């Protein structure tokens, strides 16, 4: 069973075909990258996977289950966590609360128990809080737990967003440009962290990334989008030497820089 199986997905915005007949599949436990020039449709592709937009055509299977057209909250419940290209934390909530929101579907407190804060509600809240703290420890943000998310420095916001996605206990984690704005050292730490997630937690990871060094080092396989269409797919080596990919990136020098 594949973690993700997309067949002939298309998404149009008026006349613009943002995602054009894209098919691809991701194996369980894989680190899979989606690359492509600006405006190629990578983020839109993620938005199709997470139900933010339903695809105009095509089908999406998550771990063998057809989720085409389901709303984002249902897809999240299928075990898909994600981060956003332009960080979308809950700014007015604390770091800890952000994680607790991430754990929303795993906190089982019926409404009336919450209203009267019954022993059951207290127990569940306490358990959730402990778990959130452990997760914060894991991403070394525990010392920030009571700060408002919006007050964190950029790098920590990125980390927190990943932690929030992890709080959902995802089977599949989608990261949209996680290394954006990071210096080489931070990027290296990020690479180690992503690999740790896969190796220790067994999470399948799909990432969109412009940093070719990171992509080439970390990915098991890569798909390349251009103008919404998939123009190549394969191992880092195959993609790097693919003439169409070189053409797509030519003039930007990105493919050369990656070598």
């Amino acid at each position, binding site marked *: 069973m594949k973690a993700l199986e997309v067949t002939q997905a298309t998404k149009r915005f008026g006349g613009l075909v943002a995602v054009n007949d894209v098919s691809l599949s991701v194996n369980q436990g894989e680190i899979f990258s989606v690359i492509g020039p600006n405006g190629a449709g990578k983020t839109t592709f993620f938005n199709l996977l997470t139900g933010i937009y339903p695809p105009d055509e095509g089908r999406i299977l998550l771990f063998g289950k057809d989720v085409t057209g389901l709303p*984002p909250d249902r897809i999240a419940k299928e075990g898909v966590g994600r981060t956003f290209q332009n960080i979308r*934390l809950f700014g007015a909530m604390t770091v800890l609360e952000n994680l607790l929101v991430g754990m929303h579907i795993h906190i089982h407190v019926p409404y009336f128990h919450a209203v009267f804060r019954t022993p059951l509600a207290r127990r569940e809240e306490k358990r959730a809080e402990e778990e959130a703290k452990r997760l914060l420890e894991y991403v070394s943000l525990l010392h920030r737990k009571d700060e408002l998310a919006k007050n964190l420095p950029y790098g920590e916001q990125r980390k927190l967003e990943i932690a929030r996605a992890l709080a959902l206990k995802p089977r599949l984690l989608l990261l949209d440009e996680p290394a954006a704005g990071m210096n080489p050292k931070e990027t290296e730490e990020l690479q180690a962290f992503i690999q740790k997630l896969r190796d220790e937690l067994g999470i399948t990871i799909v990432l969109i990334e412009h940093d070719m060094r990171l992509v080439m080092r970390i990915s098991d396989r890569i798909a390349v989008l251009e103008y919404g269409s998939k123009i190549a797919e394969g191992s880092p080596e195959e993609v790097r030497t693919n003439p169409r990919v070189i053409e797509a990136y030519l003039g930007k020098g990105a493919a050369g820089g990656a070598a």
Partner: protein
Amino acid sequence: MNALSSLLSLAYLGLAFLAPSPVSHLFGLAALGVTAFLRLSPTWRTLSLALLTLAFTVGLMRSGNTLGLIGLVGILVALTTLPRIPTGIRVLLALAILLLSVPLAGFANTFVFELGIQIGIYAAMALGLNVVVGMAGLLDLGYAAFFAVGAYTWAIFGSEQAKNFLQGNFPLPGEYMYLFMGIAIVTTALTGLLIGLPALRLRGDYLAIVTLGLGEVVRILANNLDHPINFTNGPQGITPVQRPPIDWFRQLMATLGVHLDRTTDYQLFFYFLVLLMIGLVVLVNVNLANSRFGRAWVAIREDEVAARSMGIPLLPTKLLAFMTGAAFSGVMGVIFAAQRTFVSPESFTLLASITILGMVILGGMGSIPGAILGAAALTILNLDVLKTFSEFVRISLPQIPNQVDPAKYERLVFGLILVLMMIFRPEGLIPEKRHRAEMEEA
């Protein structure tokens, strides 16, 4: 500096006792300002606040002047917001004000009870609306509709009105009011569902307009459902509405040494009932705020897309916020109907909705003490300050024409306050603090 505030407080205590007059009460308010805003050591500040509590109470008892009530509200605000006052003292002083000072003042001037009850009812509603607007970020301009549904739920069955369409022994006896507080939770939550289902699919301004419209629909229904079958008695309203019997309360008070007369007994009873309800409403508010539901509401307010990607379903979560807010309002509606013994559509106009919203905004969106303070401030302003000011103008400055009577400019003053707030303190009087440190439980 430290001694000054206590000295001023002491001076006011003397004035309140010997020469209670508007001027001396204004002096007391100034002393409170000094205590609250100057840099003082916690001990001196606590001492001054205690002295002022006593002084305002004495002032109220001796003159019945509601400036004293404003002072007490100010002290409550100081107790909730100022740092480094021992928690025990905060609680003790607050309880003394709510349970002793206000009732004592009420015996001197029953209008204080009236104000206290109104503030309480509106505060509870502001707390309900705070869930909807403050936490979940849903702009609801028809909130008074739920207040109306709650009020009519009891008014119809707690009066002869129900005889018009039902067989049976109406009015129901007064003690049924307690049961109807529960029933009103159900009827208003259902109304919330009915209004919310279509409205909550919309966002922002659209939601505001649609809730405004549907809120008006409820009022207009109340106005017109006197024919073909007379459910609501139309614009005349319903009266008399039963109150619960309070012999037990009179006896209880008598054993405590308080002998109540016929005008104050119900006032005191409803004052305590409303106080109890506020306690409950605050408790529920805090509980929800620190639960997965409260967090989901805030998450939706902060970022819908991110919230949905965390597995939070949009419509059900918004509906829940809407119905919760509605239920708070409904319960207070029942109490309102019983306390007034009279219900008519006039109490549930758009202006009422906007006033409650104004209380939430004035106090600080999402802030629990803020909502209560907002309710106190606007209620006192509407019912007391502007009226007193009008009277002052009429008596002292008779050359000013009738048309500029300040009481007629309630909405203008109200609007001005909101505009000034938006300019100088857009986060509200007591902004929401999302710090949980003090919520930590062992």
